[in-house]
């Protein structure tokens, strides 16, 4: 105990020396110092959110808390402030701001793409700026500080919000009277990161979210390698990464799925990111909670949309409407699921709105103590300052709010916000509280006067019996002016009263009657004011249930795996067994358990499939749905990126694909560069999280591309400097990368075979994500699916592959495959093609719908793919076109969209056909599955029905009903005078090979 006191004393001592002014010369007066104490007595004090004392005393000196409690001895040299009836809270802390930082200047647009970095001595990528120190860009903004102080904030963590690695932030006290020497509590408090590129540089890479993720990983690998002394050159960025490693890492991630993406990287490198979210974490709360990470949460809840025009309302999506309705529950949901979070003003158009939004969050279930933690102790701890700010304990900074009562109540007045022991007045404490009920006597009549509202801005209501009189109250500088219309009729004739307030129990003054005669009046208090607002919860709306995903057609509950028995179906096995009439198929534990006749199973749900067709689920070898980004076009090779990082489980196209009988897809990287990115092979488990969609032990694939897209033929005259610009160059790109990958692989093998002593004498090779991926191809552990059109380039890639002793797995598109089908068969490569697309670019002028048939006839494994969100839900029809063009047998045609793509994707041991033991990924069709009239009635993945035609119709009706309810709620919100916003309609982006979007 004594020890502790000593320590406290020491801290206080040290604290004093921190004040820079101590040794500064002074020329405008004498240099005396004030070592007086200030004592705040008789207050309700929140020492911490969980420790509250009544009638307590807070003693401060030199900007710090000396003591706080009920038994504090007030020294003689104290100035005492009586806070009877008032409350004291630690001032709030916001650790995610750009306070005092100028908006980063945008780079001028250039007339050519920029591939290399603009800087020297730093990392090769301009968007990696860990060496940037926010403090170098900081200048105290007194005006902005005022608005923070007004809302109760005392300390902010601020940073330069620009780039992927943004460098360090600093912790600043909102102390107007001090200099930066005193205000800046920690000039390297934390390191900031995001997925967004710097606006200050035009360097292309990364052009996508997945590129940003790969870049971050590479930086961490490089930093570790650099720290081991293996680099031959200096790199100030990598040095900064290593120097900042032990700081709190604040990641501005945004959308809930992006927070999970950031967390995934953190996990891989043993880092803890503090995740700045967007306010929609409740939509995937389980995954958010499972990260175990701390979150920084905005409370900028959306305003209601203006939906009075039905045509306009029609344009607002259900998810946007729901966000308005559900977002206020987000903090409560996070708290309820044990997610440690802090709140931020970030995202608010006006910081003054902070309290009203916070009250909303509380009305929607956020516990007040948790709210207080989220604003004080938690942010302090997150930036490593839990021992200095966020509480009112000895040795802590004297940062506190004095309020008239419960800080979260609407009628509470914030009087003062003290920061580092310096007073900032928000509302004068000297204002006499005149709120209460009075008997008002004017001109011989007695009225009832009720004064409510806030102390500094009270409101009046004058009544007599049943009659209410129009009135207005003005209260300023101890004077009240009250006028009202005593006739309560249409004529505007006001009685005007005024009085100086000395004692609120009895007010008296003079005035002028409605007819212009002077008069005296008085009001005597009959009852004190009761703050009903704090008791009465803010009015809330019914909250719509969250669905998975939280948009139209989402699941209220995730569908469950069950046993099913399909009776009497026409079964298209996609196996040698062919097409079986009148056959039963039993599904158990997610697998096809039996195929036969007269099957029975007591536990299974029986589906009468008489007259219907049962097939394996369709597999789309080439899809771009369900991804947040498709192309990393910043380099001519982007083997380091993976679509698995950016799987978007919330894309409506997943459900639409299910409606067309599709159960598995390969999400391919786009075709912006010869060596694209790694694929994600997923099952369309609508409602599950991104990680749940990805195949377990997924075969490894990568997208390559040839032709017009990779040589940027159709990108305009802007893009003419990147190698390659010709098919000749494309070959050299491959040769170069594969040669380097082989050398890289050998280098590591040599290293791995070295003895420890040899390792000490040699430099460790640099770990390179891109080369790792390419080495996997050389080692036949990763397969290529190559976008291709004309025969020359198809031939070329096969020859390049052969010279490096591996095979190309799949040519996708492969529209001139028919010209080299014999060579393809010999090489052993598959062809995944369109049924009938052509004429959209020069390189497809010779594309023919007979392509699939010719390749098949030459012994190539052929699949029909979509590369298109619309076509993918009609792949059964596209397969049928090979019957029309090229006379494929119907059985073969069906394989083009089931077992053949499964073979090409190396998942044919699990899916693609109806065979005992395989995954029960099945589709029940109303008709012959190749017929234009076939409708997918049920689509099942691993024994779970994810789509049912009838249920879809029902869900559509529910969507309409819910939209209507939400519209009505918004209209009533508008009628109550709440803010509304004009509809802003988001259009869905459909992705293709050449889509260049950073993140959907």
């Amino acid at each position: 105990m004594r020890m502790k006191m000593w320590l406290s004393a020491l801290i206080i001592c040290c604290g004093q020396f921190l004040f820079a002014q101590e040794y500064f010369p002074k020329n405008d007066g004498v240099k005396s110092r004030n070592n007086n104490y200030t004592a705040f007595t008789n207050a309700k004090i929140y020492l911490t959110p969980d420790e509250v004392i009544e009638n307590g005393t807070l003693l401060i000196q030199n900007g710090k808390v000396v003591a706080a409690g009920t038994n504090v001895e007030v020294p003689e040299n104290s100035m005492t402030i009586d806070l009877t009836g008032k409350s004291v809270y630690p001032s709030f802390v916001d650790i995610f701001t750009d306070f005092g930082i100028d908006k980063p200047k945008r780079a001028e647009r250039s007339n050519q793409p920029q591939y290399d970095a603009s800087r020297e001595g730093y990392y090769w990528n301009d968007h990696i700026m860990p060496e940037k120190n926010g403090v170098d860009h900081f200048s105290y903004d007194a005006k902005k500080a005022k608005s923070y102080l007004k809302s109760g904030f005392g300390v902010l963590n601020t940073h330069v919000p620009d780039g992927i690695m943004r460098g360090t932030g600093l912790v600043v006290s909102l102390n107007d009277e001090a200099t930066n020497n005193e205000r800046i509590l920690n000039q390297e408090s934390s390191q900031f990161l995001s997925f967004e590129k710097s606006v200050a540089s035009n360097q292309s890479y990364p052009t996508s979210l997945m590129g940003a993720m790969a870049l971050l990983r590479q930086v961490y690998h490089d930093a570790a390698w650099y720290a081991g002394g293996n680099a031959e050159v200096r790199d100030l960025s990598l040095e900064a990464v290593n120097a900042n490693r032990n700081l709190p890492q604040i990641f501005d991630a945004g959308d809930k799925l992006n927070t999970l993406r950031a967390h995934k990287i953190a996990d891989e490198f043993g880092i803890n990111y503090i995740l700045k979210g967007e306010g929609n974490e409740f939509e995937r709360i389980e995954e958010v909670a499972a990260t175990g990470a701390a979150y920084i949460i905005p409370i900028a809840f959306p305003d209601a949309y203006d939906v009075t025009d039905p045509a306009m309302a029609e344009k607002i999506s259900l998810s946007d409407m729901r966000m308005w309705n559900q977002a206020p529950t987000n903090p409560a949901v996070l708290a309820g699921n044990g997610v440690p979070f802090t709140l931020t003003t970030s995202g608010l158009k006006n910081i003054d709105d902070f309290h009203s939004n916070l009250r909303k969050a509380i009305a929607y279930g956020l516990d007040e103590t948790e709210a207080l933690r989220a604003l004080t102790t938690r942010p302090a701890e997150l930036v490593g300052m839990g021992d200095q700010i966020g509480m009112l304990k000895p040795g802590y900074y004297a940062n506190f709010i004095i309020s008239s009562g419960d800080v979260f109540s609407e009628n509470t007045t914030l009087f003062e916000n003290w920061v580092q022991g310096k007073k900032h007045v928000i509302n004068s404490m000297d204002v006499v509280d005149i709120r209460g009920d009075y008997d008002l006597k004017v001109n011989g009549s007695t009225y009832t006067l009720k004064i409510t509202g806030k102390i500094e801005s009270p409101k009046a209501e004058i009544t007599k019996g049943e009659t209410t009189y129009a009135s207005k109250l003005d209260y300023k500088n101890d004077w009240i002016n009250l006028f009202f219309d005593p006739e309560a009729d249409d004529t505007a004739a006001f009685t005007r009263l005024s009085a100086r307030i000395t004692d609120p129990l009895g007010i008296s003054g003079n005035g002028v009657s409605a007819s212009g005669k002077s008069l005296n009046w008085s009001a005597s208090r009959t009852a004190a004011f009761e703050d009903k607002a704090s008791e009465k919860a803010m009015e809330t709306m019914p909250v719509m249930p969250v669905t998975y995903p939280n948009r139209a057609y989402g699941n209220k509950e995730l569908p469950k795996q069950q046993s099913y028995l399909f009776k009497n179906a026409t079964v298209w096995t996609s196996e040698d067994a062919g097409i079986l009439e009148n056959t039963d198929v039993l599904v158990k534990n997610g697998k096809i358990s039996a195929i036969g006749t007269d099957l029975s199973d007591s536990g299974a749900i029986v589906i009468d499939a008489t007259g219907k067709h049962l097939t394996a689920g369709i597999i789309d070898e080439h899809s771009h749905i369900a991804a947040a980004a498709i192309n990393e076009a910043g380099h001519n090779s982007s083997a380091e990126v993976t679509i698995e990082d950016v799987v978007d489980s919330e894309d409506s196209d997943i459900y639409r694909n299910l409606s067309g009988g599709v159960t598995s897809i390969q999400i391919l990287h786009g075709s912006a560069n010869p060596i694209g990115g790694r694929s994600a092979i997923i099952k369309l488990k609508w409602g599950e999280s991104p990680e749940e969609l990805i195949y377990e032990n997924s075969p490894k694939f990568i997208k390559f591309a040839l032709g017009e897209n990779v040589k940027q033929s159709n990108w305009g005259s802007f893009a003419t400097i990147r190698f390659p610009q010709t098919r000749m160059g494309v070959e050299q790109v491959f040769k170069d990368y594969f040669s380097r990958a082989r050398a890289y692989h050998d280098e590591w093998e040599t290293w791995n075979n070295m003895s420890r002593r040899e390792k000490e004498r040699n430099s460790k090779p640099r770990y390179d994500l891109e080369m790792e991926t390419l080495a996997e191809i050389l080692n036949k552990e990763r397969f290529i699916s190559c976008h291709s059109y004309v025969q020359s380039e198809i031939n070329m890639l096969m020859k390049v592959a052969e010279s490096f002793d591996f095979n190309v797995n799949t040519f996708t598109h492969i529209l001139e495959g028919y010209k080299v089908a014999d060579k393809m068969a010999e090489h052993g490569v598959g062809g995944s093609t369109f049924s009938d697309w052509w004429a959209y670019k020069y390189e497809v002028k010779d594309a023919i719908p007979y392509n699939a048939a010719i390749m098949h006839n030459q012994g190539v494994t052929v699949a029909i793919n979509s590369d298109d969100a619309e076509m993918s839900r009609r792949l059964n029809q596209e397969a049928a076109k090979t019957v029309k063009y090229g006379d494929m047998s119907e059985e073969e045609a069906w394989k083009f969209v089931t077992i053949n793509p499964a073979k090409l994707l190396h998942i044919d041991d699990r899916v693609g056909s109806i065979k005992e033991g395989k995954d029960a990924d099945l589709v029940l069709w109303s008709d012959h599955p190749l017929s234009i009239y076939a409708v997918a009635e049920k689509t099942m993945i691993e024994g779970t029905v994810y789509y049912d035609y009838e249920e879809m119709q029902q869900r559509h009706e529910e969507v309409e009903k819910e939209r209507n309810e939400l519209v009505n709620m918004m209209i009533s919100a508008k009628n109550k005078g709440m803010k509304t916003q004009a509809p802003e309609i988001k259009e869905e982006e459909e992705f293709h090979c050449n889509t260049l979007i950073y993140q959907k």
Partner: protein
Amino acid sequence: MKSIRSIITSLTLLLALTLSAQQTPAPAQQEAVLITGVTTHIGNGEVIENSAVGFAEGKINFVGPASEAESGSYGKVIEGNGRHLYPGFIAVNSTLGLVEIDAVRATDDIEEVGGIIPHVRSLIAYNAESKVVESMRPNGVLMAQIAPRGGRVPGTSSVVQLDAWNWEDAALKVDDAIHMDWPSRYTRGRWWLGEDPGLKPNDKYREQVDEVFTFMKEAKAYLAGPQQEINLPYQAVKGLFDGSQKLYINVDDSKSILEAIERTEAAGIGKIVIIGGDNAHLVAETLAEKNIPVVVKRPHRIPENSYQNVKHPFKLASMLADKGVMVTVDVSGQMERMNTRNLPFYAGTVAAYGMDKEDAVKMITGDAAKILGIEEFAGTIAVGKDATLFLSEGDALDMRTNKVSEAFIQGRDISLETHQTELYKRYSNKYDNQE
């Protein structure tokens, strides 16, 4: 032996190559033809089993039971053997022949500069020798309206048949309609200026609508006067006021559709057709009452938004037809020219989601002809009309059975070979010869 065959094949191929620019249009019908033993889809919703259809000098002169046909009076009798006979399918609001390769700007003649340019005519740019056009015929698409795209009033369309030496030969109805793109109630933020790229209400909507109807008013006034000064745009819309031309209005939302109806009525424009019509089902009663047809936007498309019925694009045409609106479907959208050959399958999909199959045929034959105003001589298999028809192995709305074996345009026996079938044969032969 094998080498001789190779030489012959090579020679044939060489010949084929030199001729491969485009299939030679068929000469005028010489002898009368009777197709018998077929299931005839009339194109008006009716179907006749075991029937016969005869035609001479380009015109149909017999439609009826096979047993009643006088085969003796026909120079050529084609045995149908149960095949299906259809009137040629008609693609409304197409851009066939205006672009050859989408990505090659030099081949692109689809959009002229300017906002209100009704005088710009698609017909003269229509490339009768397009390889994309010839690929329509093996699928039964034999006629098309060729429409310009682009600005507010991008120009005047014409209706053509798809086997011709040049655009004059091709024309079935010259300058049949004026096309208009109704102003959008929403605009997109300019992302390159840092604005949100989402749609926002269009502040200029009113102004943009008024601009068109001020133009129409001016044109009407001009046409009533002496017309001493030549004004090409005003003269171009004359047909809208005398009823000889229709105004095709591309518009989706229901409110704008109602507005379009009212504004055109007030402007004295007699006949309009709605194109697109994604929300037309909300005003179907009005459309039916006023006899305004709808060219439903390509059914093979993704719903406009996440909350629309997953099958809405498939269902829209039948929802409208059920309420008495005359409908057809178009092919507009991405890769629309090469996709125009899929028109029958768009109709098939409409049939899969609610419409009677024969009504789906009618939609792209008889009704399409009525919408285009060519029903007097085209659209159905009826005596006196053009013999523009084709034989399919089976149901032509289903890709499984759409196998066109013979096709006639105005009685001319047209080739079903294309650039694509030639390549198919060329490479099939290559591999056959390797064996």
